[in-house]
């Protein structure tokens, strides 16, 4: 008999700020969020084997996030525009409004870099959106 499966309905909490203490909850504007933890692959193959082998190098973490744009105080533009060209803080939990736990871990990047932001992206008949990429930073996954 097959075990019942638990699937994930995308409803994450996304907070961004200059530091953890000033992170603003932008979940209500968020359309997509992809946080990637990556360890660069350094090839350690040798002629002793016909297989390629790799080992971990530097960590290259990244958050790519898309928001519906808003220019109101403390919303998308106001929160993000001061962070362009700085190291900042981002955190995401899988389920918004639910306590952090082993089944709802809080993923964060500290001192992650925001290189660029489209301050205006307008298309006829469409809602404005902004996509951002936060690069690097120290990754953590908290369960409490």
């Amino acid at each position, binding site marked *: 008999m097959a075990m019942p499966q638990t699937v994930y309905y995308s409803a994450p909490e996304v907070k961004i700020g200059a530091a953890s203490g*000033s992170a603003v909850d932008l979940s209500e504007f968020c359309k997509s969020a992809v946080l990637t933890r990556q360890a660069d692959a350094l090839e350690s193959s040798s002629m002793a084997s016909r297989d390629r082998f790799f080992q971990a190098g530097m960590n290259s973490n990244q958050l790519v996030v898309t928001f519906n744009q808003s220019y109101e105080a403390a919303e998308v533009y106001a929160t993000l525009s001061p962070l362009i060209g700085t190291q900042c803080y981002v955190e995401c939990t899988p389920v918004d409004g639910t306590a952090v736990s082993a089944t709802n871990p809080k993923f964060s990047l500290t001192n992650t870099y925001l290189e660029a932001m489209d301050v205006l992206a307008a298309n006829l008949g469409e809602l404005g959106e902004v996509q951002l990429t936060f690069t690097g930073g120290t990754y953590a996954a908290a369960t409490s």
Partner: protein
Amino acid sequence: MTYTVLHAFGDHQPGDVIEAGDLSEMDAAYLLQTGAIAANDVQKPAARGKTKTAKSED
């Protein structure tokens, strides 16, 4: 010096009043810029004393 929270951030909700010492300078500058907080206790310039005018004696 205190700040009033206008928009939620961190563990703070709108209407909270927080001491300046509870925020780092960097966080305070950032949150003021975003509009998430507003400064209270803004120092007003010292009140000027009344200027006395001499009565004419004619």
